């Protein structure tokens, strides 16, 4: 599904090149729950952004379902993001001018779904997530956990194949983090590929595979124990997902 070879990303500012990704080789198959783990500034979020077609690589190749990302036009990228991908961000990024239901309807609207269809699908998601009472609420009237669950509902509104989550629990307390992660896990069990970035080992345990990024490179892959590494996590990880 996702295949990166020698992926590089540099930022240029004031004539200075800053290499953020320094040759990443990565393969993610359908149905996986991959946690990209690393410290702040390691390049993990940049990797997620490139995989999500929100930015372009400066070197190497990125193939999504066999398509070379470099050959995709802006319009094609937008279509892929709309139909195949969903995004969950650390700061939720709900649109403040819209209520919960309308926020969930955003990707459906851009997909050209009709008004009735949009409302039906968004209400179904609210129901599935047990958040019917939030339908008319704006972000100022919701807790962080509620906002993030609405953001997840928005991300999966178009039933995407891949869900990209960038530190989805970064702004949440322990209880809300657990709820959100269980939700992502449930989506993965239902067949959705989940690619999540985190710096928290306790969160990384929810994945079926952990990729450790350090200084723009993948230093460990697969079912590696994080014990004794960055955060001295005592948990072993396997492809089955749950420790």
């Amino acid at each position, binding site marked *: 599904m996702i295949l990166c070879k020698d992926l590089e990303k540099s930022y240029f500012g004031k004539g200075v090149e800053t290499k953020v990704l320094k040759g990443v080789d990565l393969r993610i198959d359908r149905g996986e729950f991959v946690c990209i783990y690393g410290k702040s500034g390691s390049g993990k979020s940049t990797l997620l*952004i490139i995989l*999500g077609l*929100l*930015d372009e690589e400066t070197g190497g190749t990125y193939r999504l379902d066999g398509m070379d990302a470099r050959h995709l036009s*802006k*319009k094609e990228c*937008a*279509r*892929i*993001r*709309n*139909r195949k*991908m969903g*995004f969950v*961000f650390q700061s939720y*990024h*709900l*649109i*403040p*001018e*819209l209520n919960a239901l*309308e926020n969930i*309807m*955003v*990707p459906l*609207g*851009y*997909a*050209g*779904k*009709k*008004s009735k269809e*949009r409302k039906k699908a968004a209400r179904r998601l609210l129901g599935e997530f047990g958040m019917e009472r939030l339908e008319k609420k704006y972000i100022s009237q919701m807790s962080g956990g509620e906002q993030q669950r609405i953001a997840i509902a*928005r991300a999966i509104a*178009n039933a995407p194949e891949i869900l990209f989550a960038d530190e989805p629990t970064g702004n949440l307390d322990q209880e809300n983090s657990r709820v959100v992660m269980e939700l992502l896990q449930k989506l993965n069990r239902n067949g959705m590929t989940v690619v999540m970035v985190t710096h928290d080992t306790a969160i990384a345990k929810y994945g079926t595979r952990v990729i450790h990024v350090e200084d723009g490179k993948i230093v460990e892959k697969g079912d590696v124990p994080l014990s004794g590494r960055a955060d001295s996590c005592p948990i072993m990880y396997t492809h089955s997902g749950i420790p």
Partner: protein
Amino acid sequence: MEYVIRKAIRMLYWNRWISLLMVGEMALGMSVFVYSANLSASLKAEEMRLEGQRMDMALEISVKNVQEVQDEPSLTLKDYRKLQEITGGKTFLLVDIPQFFVDAKASYEFSLVLADYAILDLEEGCSYWGAETEEALAAGMNPVPGLRIRRMPKQFPGEYLEKSYWDHCVVAPIAYMEEMAGEIAPGFVHAVWDSAELPDAGRMDGQIEEYLQREHGGQYVYRVYLPEAELKNNSEKVKVSIRVLNHAGILILAVFFVGILSIFQLLFERRKGGYGVCLACGASHKQILAEIFTEIAVMNLAGTVLGVAAGWIATYALDARIMIGGIKVRGSFAVAGIAFAACAAVTVFVVFAVYVRLAEGKIVEQIQ
């Protein structure tokens, strides 16, 4: 597209107070602009009408003392004959007496026009009825019953006045001036000349004034003048007033333009994240452009429609004492066209200015 429009309107509603303020400012600027431009267009049209008129010299009759009762007519048949004598038969006189009849079924309104049949080449002993007087004729509302009834000739007499004028008239011979002397108010008398046809127009106007003054000077004042030249002389002050109004309108529009540009730049800064999220959710740049365009266009269009409507109403209803009396102030479709063209230009410019900032940034930067 339906979603894009709905979302843009939702955004406008969210920012409704700013939107209403902008619509109000646009409407105010547009109304002042449209009003002043309509005044200007009406003045120009009047100038052009007078320029194109063959009859460029006219008689003005005014009452000396409005408090006193005028017991004699301001112009008689004898006077008309004398004017023809002075001008060598070049006087064109119309006496336009408004008629109003009521019966059990309806009311009838038209003009009884007394004219010199010899000049208009009409048959003596007949009255001529315009197209719009059919109902009055059918109801027997005939102010000149002794005459044979004829339809107004189709080509008649466009040389002197527009056809639409004659459609509302019943024409009778000038001789009826004697019979109807009591009904002829000074304002009903229209005597005009083509100065080019007069052998010595400069001298004749004095002669005419002198004669009429001598005959009826106790109650009336007579003045022979050139309407076109007089309008040009008197309209300078009017033009300055119109220009001031026009500049005020344009200034308000300029303030609106800077305002809308700044507000949308600020709004964009605040909503950059939202646009970024929409792009991440799969919106194309075209859809975002359409969203921004709809928001700005709806606001501008609402302001323009309200402004043009208010300016149009003001044109017909507001007597700001700017125009010289007698000039018919009318709304000009060209002015409305300019207003809508300005609206389109402002919309395109503001959309472009806002969108360029969106298009040049990376999605991820907008989200952050």
